[in-house]
């Protein structure tokens, strides 16, 4: 298997949260939460708008520091600090934007080179093939439709075959074929490592073997 495709995790992989909580100023972004997930698996994260799904994924990706509690990604005997997680975690969310002045391939090659992947162009070609975007590889980002941009986000998340993939609303803007691709990708990733999907779409909820439901009333209630 190429280095760019999801590789089965050889060492035990576990993602643990202990009393994880986040506040945006006075507003509660994520209520205290604890869980333990082990690979291989697909986990669906559900909850009403504002319940903290995106906040949780950002914390797990190392983009956001929790106000309290901790999240630990353990591969084998090694605990990866948040700063090192970017090398092992793939992340796609609606907020993820790319450089308009660069093409699809140039954006992803930049990401692959910055992550230090051994063969960036092979990794990019494989990721684009997996999400069905190879035909638009030379297009500039503004030339893509909303659905194509979503495929680009998915390709970015899969780049280099990360051990953990975090997908926030992965099916947004996608047509039926795109949603089928998401289902296939989740299935492949769930065999190789860990995938967490934040969604309220019933079709995507079926993709997970486990689920975490955030039960807050939502809309970021003041605590």
């Amino acid at each position, binding site marked *: 298997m190429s*280095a760019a495709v999801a*590789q089965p995790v050889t060492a035990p992989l576990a993602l643990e949260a202990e009393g994880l909580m986040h506040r945006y100023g006075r507003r509660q972004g994520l209520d205290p939460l604890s869980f333990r997930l082990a690979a291989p698996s697909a986990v669906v994260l559900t909850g009403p708008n504002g319940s903290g799904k995106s906040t949780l994924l950002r914390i797990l*990706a190392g*983009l*956001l*520091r929790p106000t309290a509690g901790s999240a630990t990604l353990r591969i084998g005997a090694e605990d990866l600090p948040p*700063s090192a997680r*970017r*090398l*092992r975690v793939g*992340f796609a*969310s609606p*907020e*993820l*934007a*790319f*450089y*308009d*002045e*660069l093409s699809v391939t*140039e*954006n992803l090659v*930049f*990401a692959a*080179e*910055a*992550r*230090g*992947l*051994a*063969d960036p162009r092979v990794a990019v070609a494989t990721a684009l093939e997996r999400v069905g975007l190879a035909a638009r590889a030379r297009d500039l980002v503004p030339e893509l439709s909303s659905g194509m941009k979503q495929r680009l986000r998915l390709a*970015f998340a899969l780049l*280099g*075959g*990360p*051990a953990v993939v975090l997908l926030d609303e992965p099916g947004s803007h996608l047509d039926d074929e795109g949603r089928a691709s998401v289902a296939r990708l989740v299935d492949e990733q769930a065999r190789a490592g860990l995938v967490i999907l934040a969604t309220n779409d019933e079709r995507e909820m079926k993709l997970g073997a486990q689920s975490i439901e955030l039960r807050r009333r939502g809309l970021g209630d003041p605590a």
Partner: protein
Amino acid sequence: MERKASSSAAAVWAILRKECRSEWRTRYGLNAALLFAVTSLAAVSFAVGPLGDRTDILSALLWVVLFFAALSSLSHAFVREIEGHTLTLLRLVASPTAIALGKLFFNLIFLVVIEAVTVPLFLLLMGGPPPGWSRFLAMLSLGSVALAASCTLVSAIIAQTRGRGALFAGVSFPLLLPVLAAAVKGTRAQWLGGTVGAEASILLAYALAVFGVSLLLYDHLWED
């Protein structure tokens, strides 16, 4: 996931190349900087002509033109990422330190390009005594390094704040004043045939201090 030995160096190099490619395609800062430099030099030249042996005005004018020509780009090194919503992408592929170093090296290259056009034009239009080239280039190099390091740090600090335009001016003024003062003084000294050792030492020490502080700060700058 197979990786190269030094992913930090790879990240800095990738970010530097991305910055150069983006700037080349958009000319976001280059055109504005060169327009400012050429216009201001032409305007001063038409108004007062060659300044001859007024080395005090010559050295101040040179650094004022270089500073303001480069400022529009240097101050926006991180703001562009915020406004283009690409900071999340950057943070997912590289450490804050690697991002900042990539931006710093790009800012240095940007300054060199601006100087390659501005300095010959300045010497042609403004006259003045022939520069002592080694001391003149030493002042230009060290001043540019200190300027780029300071502006990159301030740009990173203010990037995610509201009212960042006003903040940049407020935060950068005390940081950049010693750089400009030493650079102007050293540039004048070389025109007068004096030594520039003291000014060169100040600029080098200042650049190293800012660089050191930057390395300590960058990893904590964007933690929400």
